[in-house]
C-alpha cells in the first residue's frame, strides 16, 4: 500500500494538518530559549496601534534607528491597527508580557481621547507613557489652490453654510480644536472622520472636503500641496513650514490649551515596579537618542519638524493626559454624537 492509495478521511486530514502545524510550532522552541540573561534579552517588540506606512511608522523608525545603537537590540514594530487604536492598546495590555521587552508606541492625544469617549477594558493606571518623543499641534489646512486664503475666509464661509472638514477620527485633538473654533466664531463645521492621516489629507487634496484638521507635522510633510490656516498651540514654532499661520489663541484671543498629538513610548506600569533596572536602561538610552545629532538628521530627512521633537518623562506625560482628559470631557457629546 502506498501513501497515494491509503484510505483517507476527514479525521486523518485534520490529524495531518495538526501534525504539520505542531511540528512548525515546535521548531521555534529552541530559539526561544537561546537568548542571553542580560537586558535586553533579544528583540524589543513595539506595538504600534496604527497601520504601517503612517506618521507613527515614520517617527518610530527614525527614533529606533538611533536607539538601537544605545540599547543594542533590534526593534520589531508590531502594527495592530483598528478601532482608533483600541485594538493595539487592548492587545498590548492583554497579551504582551510585562517584562520590559515589550513596548507600545502610541499617539497619546487621540488615543487617550478615545478612552475618555469609551473606556478600555484594562485599567488605565496599568499603562504608563514613560517617554514622550514629540508634541505635534493640530492645525487647520486647505489645499494649495483653495479659495480659502486665510482662516477669516473659512470662518466667513462657515457662517453662510456648513463646511465639511476631514479629520483622522472624531476623538482627536485637532477635531477638538475645530469644534472650539466653531464654538468661538459661530462658524458651522461638519466633521467627517476618514480613518487616518493619509485619508484626511486625501479628502482635502481631492477636493471632496472643504478643509481638514490634523496634526500639523503630517500637514507640513506634504509641502506646497497644502496650506495651513490655523494652529492649535501657543506658538507656531514651525513658522513658514506651516505658512506662518497664526495660532487660535493669537488670532482670537482665546485661552485654548495646546491641542497636541504626542507620540510616546508606553509600558505596563508593573514593569516599573518589578524590573526597575530594565526600566532605567530603557529611560537612560532613550535620553541618549535625543542628544544624538544623527537623530536630528533622521527626523529632518524623514520630513519631520525638529522643533516638535520634545522629550518628556512620566510626569510630563501624566500632565499632558490630564489636559486631554479635561478637553475630551468638555466636547464628549460632540465627539460621541450623544447629547449630554
Amino acid at each position, binding site marked *: 500500500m502506498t501513501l497515494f492509495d491509503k484510505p*483517507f478521511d476527514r479525521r486523518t*486530514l485534520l490529524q495531518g494538518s495538526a501534525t504539520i502545524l505542531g511540528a512548525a510550532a515546535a521548531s521555534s522552541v529552541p530559539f526561544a530559549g537561546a537568548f542571553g540573561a542580560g537586558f535586553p534579552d533579544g528583540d524589543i517588540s513595539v506595538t504600534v496601534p496604527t497601520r*504601517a*506606512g503612517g506618521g507613527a511608522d515614520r517617527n518610530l523608525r527614525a527614533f529606533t534607528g538611533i536607539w538601537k545603537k544605545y540599547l543594542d537590540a533590534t526593534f520589531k514594530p508590531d502594527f495592530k491597527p483598528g*478601532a482608533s487604536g483600541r485594538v493595539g492598546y487592548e492587545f498590548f495590555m492583554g497579551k504582551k508580557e510585562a517584562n520590559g521587552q515589550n513596548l507600545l508606541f502610541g499617539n497619546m492625544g487621540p488615543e487617550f481621547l478615545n478612552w475618555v469617549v469609551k473606556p478600555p477594558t484594562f485599567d488605565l493606571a496599568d499603562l504608563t507613557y514613560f517617554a514622550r518623543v514629540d508634541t505635534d499641534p493640530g492645525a487647520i489646512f486647505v489645499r494649495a489652490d483653495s479659495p480659502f486664503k486665510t482662516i477669516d475666509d473659512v470662518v466667513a464661509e462657515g457662517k453662510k453654510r456648513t463646511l465639511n472638514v476631514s479629520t483622522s477620527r472624531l476623538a482627536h485633538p485637532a477635531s477638538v480644536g475645530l469644534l472650539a473654533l466653531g464654538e468661538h466664531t459661530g462658524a458651522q463645521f461638519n466633521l467627517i472622520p476618514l480613518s487616518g492621516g493619509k485619508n484626511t489629507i486625501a479628502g482635502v487634496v481631492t477636493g471632496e472636503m472643504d478643509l481638514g484638521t490634523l496634526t500639523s507635522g503630517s500637514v507640513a510633510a506634504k509641502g506646497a500641496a497644502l496650506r495651513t490656516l490655523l494652529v492649535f498651540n501657543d506658538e507656531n514654532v514651525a513658522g513658514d513650514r506651516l505658512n506662518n499661520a497664526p495660532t487660535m489663541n493669537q488670532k482670537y484671543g482665546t485661552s485654548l490649551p495646546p491641542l497636541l498629538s504626542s507620540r510616546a513610548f508606553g509600558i505596563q506600569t508593573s514593569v516599573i515596579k518589578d524590573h526597575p533596572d530594565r526600566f532605567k536602561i530603557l529611560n537612560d538610552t532613550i535620553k541618549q537618542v535625543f542628544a544624538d545629532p544623527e537623530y536630528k538628521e533622521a527626523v529632518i530627512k524623514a*520630513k519631520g519638524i525638529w522643533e516638535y521633537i520634545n522629550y518628556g518623562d512620566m510626569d510630563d506625560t501624566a500632565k499632558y493626559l490630564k489636559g486631554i482628559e479635561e478637553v475630551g470631557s468638555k466636547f464628549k457629546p460632540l465627539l460621541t454624537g450623544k447629547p449630554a
Partner: protein
Amino acid sequence: MEEVSFQMFAELFFHTLGFWWIIIPAMLLGLIVGAIPGFSAANTIIILLPLTFAMEVEQGVVFMVALYASSRMGAGIPAILVNIPGTAGAAATPLDGYPMARAGLGQQALAMSFVASTAGGLLTTIIALIAMPWLAQVAFFMHSVEMIVVMLFGISLIATIAAKNTLKGLIAGLFGLMIGAVGTDFVYETPRATFGFLELYDGIPLVPALVGLFAISEAFLVIEGESILTRRGKELMDNPSWKASIEGIRMSVKRWWHITWCSLIGLVIGVIPGAGASIASFVAYQQSRSYSKTPELYGTGHPEGLIAPEAANNGVTSGTLVPLMVIGLPGGATAAIMLVVLQFHGVNFGPQLFGERPEIGFGIFMAMAVTYLLMIFTILPLSRYMTKVTIVSTAFMAPVIISFTLVGSFVPREFGFDMALALGFGVLGYIARRTNYHVAAILIGIILGPLLEQFFLRAIRMANGDLTVLFSSRIGNGLWIALVVTIALPYVLDHLRARRRRRETA
C-alpha cells in the same frame, strides 16, 4: 528640468534595465510571496524595510516595484491551481480559473493569467507613464458618491450569481454583507457583532475569510475524491506538453481587446485613493460578464472570466503609483509603504519630483514596465511546470492546503484567532457548497460591503442625511446610468437572442 522626450524615455529604459540584477531576484521573490496565502507585496516590503533603507534610493525603488508587480501575478497561481486566492485582489480569479484547472486546463489557465497580468500591467504602466498628469485628475472627480456606484458595480455580481438560483444567491449575498458589517462603525467606532472579540474590532479580516471560504472548504470537499481533477482533466494531464501553454498564450492574445479594457478599468480604479485591486477585479469581472456573448459560461471555466480580474488587478498596480508620485497620496497599502521608504530617502513628491529627480519620478514606472517585460519570460516555464501541482493526490494536497492557508491566515495580523476564523469560514464554505449556496456571493458581500458602507456613511454625513446626495454629481449620475445599463443588458440580450431563435425556428 530635463525635457520629456522619447529619447529621455529610451535612455531611462536602458538605465533601468541595468538594474536587472535587482529586478530578477525581486521578481522571483514577488512571485513566491504572491503565491503564498497571507503574504503580499506590502508585508514583504515591511519585513525587508531595513534592506530598502540601506539601498540607494533608486535601487530601493526598483526593488520594491519589481516585487510589487510580480506578486500580483504570483497571487493568481494558487487561486487558479488550488482555489486559494491569497489576497483580496485575486478573489475573483478562481471563479473561472479553478474550474479550468480541474478540467485539466491548468496550463492554459496559468498561461492566460500570466499573459493578462504582464500585458495588462505593461500596457497600463506605459499609459500611466505617458498620461500621469491627466490620470491623477481622476482622484479629483471620484468622491464618495461616485465610489458608492463603483462598489455597486461589484456588488451587482451577487445579483448575477443569484440569477441561477435567485433565493439562495440573494441569501448568500446578504449573509456576506451582514458578515462584512462586523466590526466598529466608521463614524463613532461603536463595536457591532464583535461578541467581545478584540480581533473583530477592525472588521472581518479578509485573508482568513478568503482562504476559508475558498481553499479550506475546497480541501474538505476534495478529500472525498482522489484528485482535484475531473476524469477528463486527469486524461489531459497525463500527457502534459508545451502545446497547452502555447495554446493558453494564443487564447489570451486572441482576446487582446478584453485584456486592454479590463486592465484600463484596473488603472482607473487604482488611481483612486482608497479603492484597490479587490474592487477592480470584481468590477472588471462584472463588466466582462455583462458584455459577453456567453455570460452563462462564467463561473464554469470561461477564459474571459479569468482574464478580466487578472488584467484588472495588474492595472491597479501602476494606478496606485500615479497619485503617490503626482500628488503624494498613496493609492493603496503597498504604495503607502513605498512612501515611507521614499520619504526616508528625502524624496519630495509632486510635480517638482519629475523635474528634480526624473530617475525617481518617471523611473518608478519604468521599473514597473521593465519588470513586466522580464516577467514575459516566466510565462512558459511557470505555466508548464506549476500545473503539476494539480496531479498531486488529495491525500497530500488537502492537508498541505489547510496548513498553508492557516499559516497564511496568521501572517497579516499575527493573531492566532485568525487561524480559527479561517477554519470557521472553511466549515461555512463547506456547508454552503454542499447546500448549493455560492461562496463567491458571500465573499463579495464580505469584501465590498464594508467599503460600500464606508463611502455611503461618508456621503450621507457630508449631506447631513439628505439621500438625494447620491444623485448630486454628474459623474455619479453617469455611473448610475451605466450601472443600470450593465445590469439590464444581459437580460435584454438574452431576450433578443431568444426572440431571434424563435424567429429562426418558426
